[in-house]
């Protein structure tokens, strides 16, 4: 079929043409609440043709995963599903377990999120792939294992010892490949990939997505790719459906939708990516923070043996930071970024080296008032039993200060009414703001410049909220001339926010410079890959 006729068929709301592999008609999923129902998926209507790659784009919580699970009848029994989903002529909604069991994994398969949590921790990965085959085909054990091995190899996991490994011994990207092998081993006609790269860094993400595309093409199957990052969809999808609050608000060929979106929500979503904060020129003043020769070694004890392994987390790190400046620290996982952050904030004191504040070694109390850290998962840094007021007042009580709680909340864009709510009731973005407000409360407000360390704090937020938080942070920086140390593995955030970027690898600084310069002309191999991937994802953005 030509592109034009595909366009016409997909935009048309009439009954789908006979070659449609999957046709969904007014799918609704509701969960009963105390009063009324919570409608998670509203009137979803779409059709997927053979060999197509369809992307589903939307912010987190908009119902994408729920819709995918509804297709396979995997929702909890309390969910109420209505509408029609026809797969190769067979109606899936309300079908018996026996029918669904045959379809799952063999004809429609799901690649789930969270690779570590989606694999059985006590079974070797090759056996996990083989089990899927054994559940569907009457083949002997040995042959199942052989086919499993070749499926893993096709997904990119070729080494024998990797195939025989257990999930926790593999990296995130390798686990994702296992999930892909599991999904494709029975040769399904439709693959649903639910955010396959959200837990990965940019290099692995691009690779995974490319592997997926080639495998699906070889198998002549269709692919539904669910993501919240439009750059991924641009890489491999033919069509895209934009979801907001349970319903499809826009659909069409991917390049068209991403270049000139029509729905206001899509426009907002895409614009948030392009906004870059303005970087005013910095005057060269004396450094606020000066770190010299920081080292830290960990003793890793085996659980059952007495011998330990020495891990050198930091091996001599120097850096400088000025008031009003943002420094980004990037590097592969395990490079020592978090250790560096905790060493500067003196949560885990370094073995040797100096951390000087305005040229002097600060006392414990000074550190508490001038340097604060915001953790990777802002929600986890708030005690769920506390109310917002109690969480905000805690540093005040410890440091014996007074402050206006409502004003603190307003500063970060939270309403005063939030004071009486439990911290566990806030959304992800609100928790991040609260953690920020609390850190600001602890900092000295008598005018001395302070330092805020953000340890991958923005990574767990979705694009939309992330953009808002970045704006808030840069506003605060201008107001209070705060200095930020930003630890990130998402280079685009670093590129937008930082004045200077440091690349950390195995405890050492291997490169430093202004972000744009580094992106163009870096020499460090990992950073090169990272930079290339980021640029590739951002082309034409």
């Amino acid at each position: 079929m030509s592109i034009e006729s595909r366009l016409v068929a997909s935009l048309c709301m009439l009954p789908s043409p006979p070659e449609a592999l999957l046709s969904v008609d007014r799918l609704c999923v509701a969960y009963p609440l105390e009063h009324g129902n919570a409608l998670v998926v509203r009137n979803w209507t779409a059709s997927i043709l053979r060999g197509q790659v369809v992307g589903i784009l939307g912010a987190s919580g908009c119902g994408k995963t729920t819709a995918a699970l509804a297709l396979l009848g995997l929702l909890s029994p309390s969910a109420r599903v209505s509408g029609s989903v026809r797969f190769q002529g067979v109606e899936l909604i309300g079908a018996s377990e026996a029918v669904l069991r045959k379809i799952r994994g063999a004809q429609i398969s799901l690649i789930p999120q969270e690779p570590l949590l989606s694999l059985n921790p006590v079974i070797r990965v090759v056996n996990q792939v083989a089990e899927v085959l054994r559940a569907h085909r009457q083949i002997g054990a040995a042959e199942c294992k052989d086919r499993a091995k070749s499926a893993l190899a096709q997904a990119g996991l070729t080494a024998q010892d990797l195939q025989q490994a257990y999930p926790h011994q593999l990296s995130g990207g390798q686990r994702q490949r296992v999930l892909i092998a599991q999904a494709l081993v029975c040769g399904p006609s439709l693959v649903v990939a639910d955010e396959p790269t959200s837990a990965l860094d940019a290099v692995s993400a691009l690779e995974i997505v490319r592997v997926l595309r080639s495998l699906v093409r070889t198998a002549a199957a269709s692919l539904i790719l669910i993501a919240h990052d439009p750059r991924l969809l641009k890489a491999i999808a033919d069509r895209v459906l934009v979801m907001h609050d349970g319903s499809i608000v826009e659909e069409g060929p991917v390049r068209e939708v991403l270049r000139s979106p029509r729905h206001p929500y899509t426009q907002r979503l895409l614009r948030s990516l392009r906004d870059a904060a303005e970087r005013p020129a910095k005057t060269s003043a004396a450094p606020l923070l000066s770190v010299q020769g920081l080292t830290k070694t960990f003793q890793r004890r085996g659980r059952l043996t007495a011998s330990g392994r020495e891990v050198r987390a930091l091996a001599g790190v120097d850096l400088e930071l000025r008031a009003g400046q943002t420094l980004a620290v990037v590097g592969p996982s395990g490079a020592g970024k978090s250790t560096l952050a905790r060493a500067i904030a003196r949560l885990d004191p370094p073995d040797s080296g100096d951390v000087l504040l305005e040229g002097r070694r600060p006392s414990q109390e000074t550190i508490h008032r001038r340097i604060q850290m915001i953790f990777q998962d802002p929600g986890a840094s708030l005690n769920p039993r506390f109310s917002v007021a109690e969480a905000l007042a805690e540093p005040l009580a410890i440091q014996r200060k007074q402050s206006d709680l409502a004003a603190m909340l307003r500063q970060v864009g939270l309403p005063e009414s939030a004071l009486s709510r439990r911290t566990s009731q806030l959304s992800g973005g609100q928790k991040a703001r609260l953690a920020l407000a609390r850190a600001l409360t602890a900092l000295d407000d008598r005018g001395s410049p302070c330092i805020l360390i953000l340890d991958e704090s923005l990574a767990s937020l979705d694009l939309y909220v992330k953009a808002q938080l970045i704006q808030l942070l840069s506003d605060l920086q201008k107001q209070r001339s705060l200095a930020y140390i930003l630890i990130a593995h998402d280079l685009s955030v670093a590129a937008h926010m930082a004045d200077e970027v440091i690349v950390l690898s195995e405890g050492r600084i291997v490169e430093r410079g202004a972000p744009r310069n580094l992106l163009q002309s870096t020499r460090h191999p990992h950073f090169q890959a990272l930079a290339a991937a980021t640029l590739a994802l951002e082309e034409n953005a």
Partner: protein
Amino acid sequence: MLRGYLLRRMLHGFFLLAGISILSFVLLELAPGDFLGEAKLNPQLSPQTLLALRERYGLDQTLPQKYIQWLGSVADGSFGISFAYNLPVSQLLWPRARKTLQLTLTSLALSWLLALPLGVWSAAGRDGWLDRTVRIVTSILIALPDLVLACVLFFVAVQTGRFRSGGPALPVTILVLAALPMLVRHVRSAVLDVSSQPYVRVARSHGIAGARLWFRWLLPAAANPLCSLFGLSVAGLISSSLLVETVVGWPGLGPLFLEAIAARDFYLVIGPVILSATFLIAGVLVGDLLLYAVDPRIRIRQ
């Protein structure tokens, strides 16, 4: 790796046993009333025997010396002497220990062999008729104290004329009924905990279901807490067996222990204490080895 682990645990066990024995000897010193004083000795012992005993066990020496003499007796296998029976303790202990082991090992095997499938089926058919029945019956049995269970079953056996003195059927039944409900509950709970993990839904999404899902996929993942439970179940069984042996009249370690306490027969008191600790430590070790075999996360962490 495994050998090193095994050796370390056994060494650890020896230290524990040594600690327990030392503590027992120390308590003896603090105890009011005479344990090793001559007034407590069997008045039928001849003066020569008394002299020999005093020399052999250092009865009039200091505490550390008494302990070392006792260690010597452990080394040559006699474990001290029973003043009431005028026999080496080991001669009294081993036959009794065999009888107790007979009971405890049978009950241990039976209760686990029954608990695993019952727990898994109960979890698999959650809220179905099997699950509900299992939950009600285990709730009732768990609440029933072991002692009461033993008395009631003994009573029933005697009244219906089924009681055969010296037969193992009644004590094993009591022990299994005492241990089984808790095991079933824990197996069920462990399996249910695992069944809410994401990888189980993923397995279902691949079409894995039924017995394959529950026994091949879920049970191994749930094995971790169950292996720790194994050691605890051994501990519970040993304590329960003391009560059951007393009620039913089974000639095991329990009644011997009680006799020794009442008679203030010191070395005969220490013997069962050390022996029961050994059984328990061995049971916990087996549990840990099972864990090592079943959970790769423990293995690999070395």
